[in-house]
């Protein structure tokens, strides 16, 4: 059963912003709203610079869904997290809850007036009839309903951003890791897998006691 996911391979991401403009183009997202952004950490630091493309991760247990006061979020059978803009009250709780900053609110004025929340839809549209004008106007393109995958992942310059069925992504990524002979050397790798010296701090081992 397909479960839709994104994975950005930080070993390949060159911050070309192809994913960013692909999304803007395909969904005609207006100025000021950025469903997908590329973040570069340690810019200019030799050996440590890494780029990664971030948008909604379509979490299995989505915090945005959990905190929404009007319950405008739902998850499709493929695991895509979508929401109903007609219900959205623009409170911004989902923005607080999301670890990735996926919810977008076009800001205007000095005090950040918010409108309806907009976010990456995995190019799966929203609760309007598939491929209709209304769906396009509110949520952007529904590529899944056309048998395609998100525009950002399909257009990634170096195929760093993989989008689609999680199993297939895992297969592709596993092949890459095997070929490289090592993991992503990204931050936190050491923390997650307890390998000291492999990028990122490893957790301090307590002397004796519980591990």
């Amino acid at each position, binding site marked *: 059963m397909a479960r839709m996911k994104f994975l950005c391979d930080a070993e390949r991401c060159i911050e070309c912003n192809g994913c960013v403009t692909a999304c803007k183009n395909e969904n005609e997202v207006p100025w000021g709203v950025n469903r997908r952004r590329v973040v570069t950490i340690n810019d200019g630091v030799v050996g440590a610079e890494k*780029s990664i493309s971030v948008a909604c991760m379509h979490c299995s247990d989505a915090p945005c869904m959990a905190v929404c006061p009007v319950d405008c979020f739902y998850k499709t059978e493929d695991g895509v997290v979508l929401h109903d803009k007609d219900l959205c009250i623009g409170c911004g709780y989902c923005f607080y809850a999301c670890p990735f900053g996926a919810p977008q609110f076009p800001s205007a004025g000095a005090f950040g007036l918010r409108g309806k929340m907009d976010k990456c839809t995995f190019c799966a549209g929203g609760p309007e009839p598939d491929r209709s004008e209304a769906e396009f106007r509110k949520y952007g393109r529904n590529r899944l309903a056309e048998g395609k995958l998100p525009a950002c992942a399909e257009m990634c310059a170096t195929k760093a951003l993989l989008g689609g069925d999680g199993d297939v992504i895992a297969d592709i990524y596993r092949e890459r890791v095997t070929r490289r002979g090592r993991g992503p050397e990204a931050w936190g790798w050491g923390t997650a897998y307890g390998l000291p010296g492999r990028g990122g701090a490893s957790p301090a081992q307590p002397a004796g006691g519980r591990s």
Partner: protein
Amino acid sequence: MLLTRKANGSVAREGRLARALSGVLAKTMDRRAFLRRSGVALGASAVASQLPFRIIGEAEAQEKKVAAKVEVKRTVCTYCSVGCAIDAHVQNGVWIRQEPVFDSPINLGAHCAKGAATRDQGITHDSRRLKYPMKLEGGKWKRISWDQALDEVSKRLLKIREESGPDALMVVGSSKYSNEQAFLLRKWVSLWGTNNTDHQARICHSSTVAGVAQTWGYGAMTNSYNDELNSKSLFFLGSNAAEAHPVSMLHTLHARENGCKVIVADPRYTRTAAKADIYVRHRSGSDVALLMGILHHIFKNGWEDKEYIRTRVYGMEQVKEEVLKKWTPDKVTEVTGVSEAEVFQVAKTLAENRPGMIVWAMGQTQHNNATTGVIRASCLLELALGNVGRRGGGANIYRGHDNVQGATDVGPNPDNLPGYYPVAVPGSWAHWARVWNVDLEWLKKRFASEAMMTKPGITVSRWIDAVLEKNENIDQDPNLRAMIYWGHSPNSQTRGSDMLEAMKKLDLMVVVNPYPSATAAMCAMVRKDGVYLLPSTTQYESSGSCTASNRSVQWREKVMEPLFESRTDHMIMYQLAQKLGFADQLLGKKDGKQNIRLVKGKGGMDEPDVEDILREINRGVWTIGYSGISPERIQAHMRNMHLFDARTLRCKGGKDAKTGYDLTGDYFGLPWPCWGKPEMKHPGTPNLYDTSLPVMEGGGNFRALFGVERDGVSLLAEDGSHPKGADITTGHPPFDHVLLKKLGWWDELTEEEKKEAEGKNWANDLSGGIIRVATKVHGCMPFGNAKARAVVWNFPDPIPQHREPLYSPRPDLVEKYPTYDDVKTLWRLPVRFKSEQQKAVKEEMHKKFPLILTSGRLVELQGGGEEQRSNRWLAELQQENFVEINPKTAAARGVRNGEYVWVSTPQRNPDGSFVRIKVRARVTEGVGPDTVFIPFHFSGWWQGRDMLAFYPEGTEPRVRGDAVNTAIPYGYDRITVIQESKTTLCQVERA
């Protein structure tokens, strides 16, 4: 990145409000819907009679499906030279969507920010396109009709011609033309009667083409982006591929994951360097020393490929002697700042990982010693390692614009006719007069004199001096009085403050462009009249071919009709030719024959047929093998991209369903040279000079371009060095009728071929018979089989020398490694080298301006940048020009991240003050404490002042900034006068 900053505040508010309402009312048209329908509402000639959805009430009609059919047109991105294919979805003549082409063997569906955003070119709502012809009158832009524009421009041109001769005009053409448009412009300029024409290659890779061609025969990328998959090492010296050629990194990174070693040498730690296995930071402008330092270790340890050098290279012993003596590690470190250990590590890695490639772009080409020094040293490195002419090895030269390769091959060059036939050789003119079906004597009379006809013209990097310089110093009768900027930006050339003066002095400036470009704004800032803007189309509004950097030719289908009142470049060329009196010659209409038919273009007006133009190119360009690249063949390639292997670019088998053309064995895009006539079915040459393959399977050898012998040593290849299966197993000169007869091969020509080939050589035999016999019958290269030259005796520096930049931070090194002597005449103008450098030392410029200023690219923008900064999705990503400055350097000046700073340089304004530009400070460790970096894509500000008022209304780019080239001072390459914009001096201070 300042993502939420709005360029136009009202826009976002409108969007927010409309979106807030849309859920409730579902009747307001918010920006998305407006954008989607905008093409239909405003598109000039392609307006559909019905809107797909009505605004009021239709929003509730949930089940209504799209009525009109969607057509898919296959085109190629118009930005860089990788050549990513795009499927454009068109409905009712409006470009509504774009889809990636996974079938393309070149980009496999990948795009960068620009390619993924290119559909903005087709959106007519709030478009910043130049929509109709305009004229500067009383300092204001006035809309005029096409008829008036063509009439006035041609009248003024004819008047200037009458008063001052044809050389008073310069036409700066474009690397964004299709091959057909580029070819037609070279013809156009020749029919006008001048060689004063140029294009972006001058400021980009002109030094490459000259330096590389003088080494081994052709000045193009030897392999392809795809071929990097077969490399064991990749040395990026002077290339920021991650930002300039992002999709090429797909192949690079895949290769890296398969064990290929990626080495990046760059004064900046770029996005490309972040993916390197080895990063070397060397001083900007010290590239020759670095390369010679690497060669030193290679020779010292005996790592050079001795057999390869013996059979295929001339003069390497002289180079070895000089390198070992002169470029000892201490000298290398003194000049480059790189330690011996680092240089050794690079040398060892390259030696142990072959085949390997060296990759370069502007980092190597834009220096005063680029052609004779940096480029040549790169060639020497690859020759020493035995990498050139192998799968996975060579000089992978990353060209810039989408068709700079094609425009260089067949387009507007001041020293060459299409196909690199030199203007200096009368035979070239005879050849092309025949192919063009133009009377040679008539053509000769069009020029001021026969001397002027054979003299290379003025370059785009120096045109301002042709206007401003004293007449007695110019090597032509008149100063330049009229300029046509046809598809070129002004802010990619240096000395902007001088350019402004030149613009003031011109009699006539014509800009032919889809966007007004900074030329319009600069002229309006200093002039009251004499400027015309003619709207031309982008490459999506016409069909045509383009040549990617790897020499593959792709065909673009027309996506949409020309928008607004724009016309295709070839229609404008024809219409101007009609007014100027050489329309018939442009079409090759003579003696009952007409080479190029007229077809109906926009609005039913006549325009030259592009396929006919490509066939004319096939008939005339034998030198680099464009002869086999027919429209039918490459169109079949575009329809069957999935049949081509992405590692070898070869088609293993298959037939085109539409025409039945058998694609088996073809290389994708028939990378030139594609020898002989199309019927001969040469498959193209994916990797140049590869002796491991037969000629008819894409093999080759080095070109015999420099004579047969020198100082008693043979310049031809040694015995045993030849393409696989060649009938001549040793070196030989180029083929002509004499050689064929000597070899006894003359009778293998058909009777018809013999008639034509008698008295001719491989390059001007229009029957193609000499080439056919040489390649197909006997497996030999038509241009001979020779050694590459390690020593180029006709250059001022036969062996590459390090020469300090004209504006150098190190006067002590200027003493040891000074630049060239001044040249009295080069490309019709005097060029200063030593005098400029000495003056800088005397005036202690290195003290006033202690930082090295280097310029370069950003991934979101390209070239002059007006086009991308008019793109709503790209403009948002780079909203302001900035300077990258090291934390130490910033702290010393009290500069904080994000603040405005003034960057001043030795370049002066007319009043004597130093030019200074205002940019944001971006504090990063990516640049060293002695260097700052500014991207060159910005324009629209003049030394801190927004030039918004000087753009025609509604055409200003969404974001504007100061152009770094306004500030970059004098400095040119010794051979090709490409500007030295990679390394100069500046000072930064808080604004």
